[in-house]
């Protein structure tokens, strides 16, 4: 091969690579990320990077309590990620998870607030479950109807619905707290009406179990059911879907209903299971973080356990760094950003091959 001009390297799509190579690339990316983090840490703070890493681990595994908090954070984040995933697989960019969680939480809180003294917990909790699922589902269905009927931009629509939900929560906080502080406080602190039962003395165990069941359910739904298949086809190509007789509008509406319902459950778990209050920060940005969790796991619910673990772990680690080293939380976020950059970047090297000039000649030769 004699070229007058050949570039330093060129990029080509890989056909497919064995799983161990792709995992080796991912591992290399994490090692590289850790090295860059170490460098940034030393340059910016002068702190010992090894101690920083140890501290990140302590943030999640330092004590039994920290481990349970990690599990709780992981579960809720995973629940929201599971919720947005069916829509993403369908290429419907639902970034309204935040609002759908909040509105589910608001419905839960409203049941606790208005019905807490009117019915026994045995009846109240089922009412809360139905209300939160309905609220989340309706919140997701509104943009879905507009998308299915008039092909509106779902990204903008679902995003805007977040702000409507935040304002609604803010409004009800001001109604329920008549002092004007905008803070509802713990609902039914004495009667504990509508509080989920504590299993085995572990407050977060119920949440963890519920989300574990949901993970398996969503996995089966997406992978082995007709609905799951239809979602994939619509995601690949709407025209193909129509051609094979799939009612695309119906799939969009049905999938968004599911997406919103799962977000509603996340709101239910947050309000009924742990916080027992509602505020505009109850969802805590999880609706957006979930987008990343879902993407990193390539919409696979089982892998999402890993990616949501990673994000919950890094967030708890950031908090521990802030505490132990007196650094601002933003520093932990910088490290998280670096690590995510490398992980996302590694997918590029899994999907594409970088061929340098010398090696490209060799490879061309071998193919010949």
């Amino acid at each position: 091969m004699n070229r007058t001009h050949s570039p330093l390297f060129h990029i080509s799509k890989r056909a497919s690579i064995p799983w161990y190579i792709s995992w080796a690339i991912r591992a290399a990316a994490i090692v590289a990320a850790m090295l860059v983090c170490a460098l940034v840490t030393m340059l910016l703070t002068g702190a010992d990077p090894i101690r920083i890493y140890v501290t990140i681990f302590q943030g999640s595994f330092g004590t039994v309590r920290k481990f349970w908090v990690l599990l709780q954070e992981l579960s809720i984040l995973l629940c929201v990620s599971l919720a947005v995933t069916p829509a993403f697989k369908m290429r419907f960019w639902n970034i309204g998870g935040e609002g759908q969680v909040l509105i589910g939480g608001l419905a839960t809180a409203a049941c606790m607030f208005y019905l807490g003294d009117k019915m026994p917990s045995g009846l109240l909790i089922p009412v809360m479950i139905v209300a939160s699922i309905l609220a989340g589902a309706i919140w997701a269905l509104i943009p879905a109807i507009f998308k299915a009927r008039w092909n509106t931009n779902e990204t903008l629509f679902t995003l805007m619905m977040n702000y409507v939900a935040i304002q609604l929560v803010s409004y009800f906080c001001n109604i329920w707290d008549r002092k004007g502080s905008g803070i509802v406080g713990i609902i039914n602190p004495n009667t504990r009406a509508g509080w989920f039962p504590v299993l085995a003395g572990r407050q977060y165990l119920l949440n963890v179990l519920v989300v574990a069941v949901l993970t398996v359910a969503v996995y089966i739904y997406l992978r082995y059911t007709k609905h799951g298949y239809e979602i994939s086809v619509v995601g690949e190509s709407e025209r193909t879907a129509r051609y094979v007789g799939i009612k695309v509008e119906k799939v969009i509406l049905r999938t968004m209903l599911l997406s919103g319902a799962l977000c509603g459950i996340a709101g239910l778990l947050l309000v009924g299971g742990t916080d027992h209050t509602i505020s505009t920060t109850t969802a805590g940005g999880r609706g957006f973080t979930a987008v990343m969790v879902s993407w990193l796991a390539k919409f696979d619910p089982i892998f999402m356990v890993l990616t949501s673990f990673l994000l919950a772990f890094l967030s708890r680690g950031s908090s521990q760094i802030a505490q132990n080293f007196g650094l601002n939380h933003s520093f932990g976020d910088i490290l998280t950003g670096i690590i995510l950059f490398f992980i996302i970047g590694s997918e590029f090297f899994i999907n594409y091959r970088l061929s340098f000039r010398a090696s490209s000649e060799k490879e061309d030769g071998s193919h010949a």
Partner: protein
Amino acid sequence: MKKTLAILLALLLALALFAGCAKTETPSGSGAGSGTTTPTEAPADAQVPAPVAAASDMEFENDSAAADAAAAKAELAAVLPKVKVGFIFLHDENSTYDKNFIDAAKEACEGLGVSYILRTNIPEGQECYNAAAELVDDGCNIIFADSFGHEDFMIQAAREFPNVQFCHATGTKAHTEKLANYHNAFADIYEGRFLAGVAAGMKLNQLIDEGKFSADEALVGYVGAYPYAEVKSGYTSFFLGVRSICPSATMEVTFTNSWYDEALEKEAANTLIQRGCKLISQHADSMGAPTACETAGIPNVSYNGSTVDACPNTFIVSSRINWVPYMETMIVNTAAGKRLAADWTGTLANGAVELTDVNTQAAAPGTVEKLEEVKAGLISGAVKVFDTGAFTVGGKTLDSYAADIHDMGDFQPETEVIKDGEFEESVYRSAPAFDIDIDGITIIDG
């Protein structure tokens, strides 16, 4: 240094009482001192007699007192290292309110030589309980939280960990929860606000005298966070301070419904300026309002601390709560094993209510002297902020008002707070209760 000394003296007084009972006993644990009346022990419903002020009045009387002081100091030095302090903050140093609290935490702990842990960016939800429980796991004996919405979660933690003291600033429920280890704190910041208002009134008068606007146009703008007692008490006392100097002044208030929203606060300040406000003050925690004022060249009276670095031309003065005396009292008493009072109220006299340095660049001439004069009047009681003769409600003088002091979730006012021609602010609990809309203040839609 002076404050530390005052606290040591307060402790001496307490330990002198202990010395009579058991000389060798080192008090530890929250129940140890419960049988003995100490200066810090107070019935749950009464205002705490400020131990620091009491001790300051005593001074050294003779040599034996000095010797006792040395003994007390030695005793304290023996128990203080056993104390570990945890702090929970809603935001971090970017919020003026949290920065003020964080700085005080560092100063108090480093002054006493106790170890401490700071947890920043803890939301007002289950995260607060988790943070408190983790601080207990880390060995903290006393835990402070700084935000109103942390209260229920601090109470939840206090129930679970009875051997740890939970101290919550700005909360309202300690005196009704009656937990031995849960405590509220606030300061008579309305007196600081009043003083800040005096400085603002002087600035308005200066501008009127210079012919910048007429006396009738002396409109003040105020950016508030939430329309509840803490904020309303704050802006009303500020306004009463303004009007004590500039009687023609009126005020417009707008709420952001957030404690920290820089964009919203800036926008609110700009709206007020466009409506013709000649001076702005705020009770929200970002730099939004002060920077809007600096850009527009409108004088600003700040809160939580000096903003002179960012606003050299418009910053006049700021009132702030100095939390150091509060934290020192709580930590020292915890170390000594004494029961802490349900409510702690800081005052001008015990150094918890402060004004920052006056920025002579922007303030009217003579402001510093006038503030000293009014401050002396407030301390002596000659000047009363919520004097019912100084304001009207719906055109009438207020001679009776029931406030919701006992925050039982019923929102029912139950306590008569007008006494001897004065609204008794922060008397029945440390957190403010003045939530009346008085004449001269207009709330505009934000």
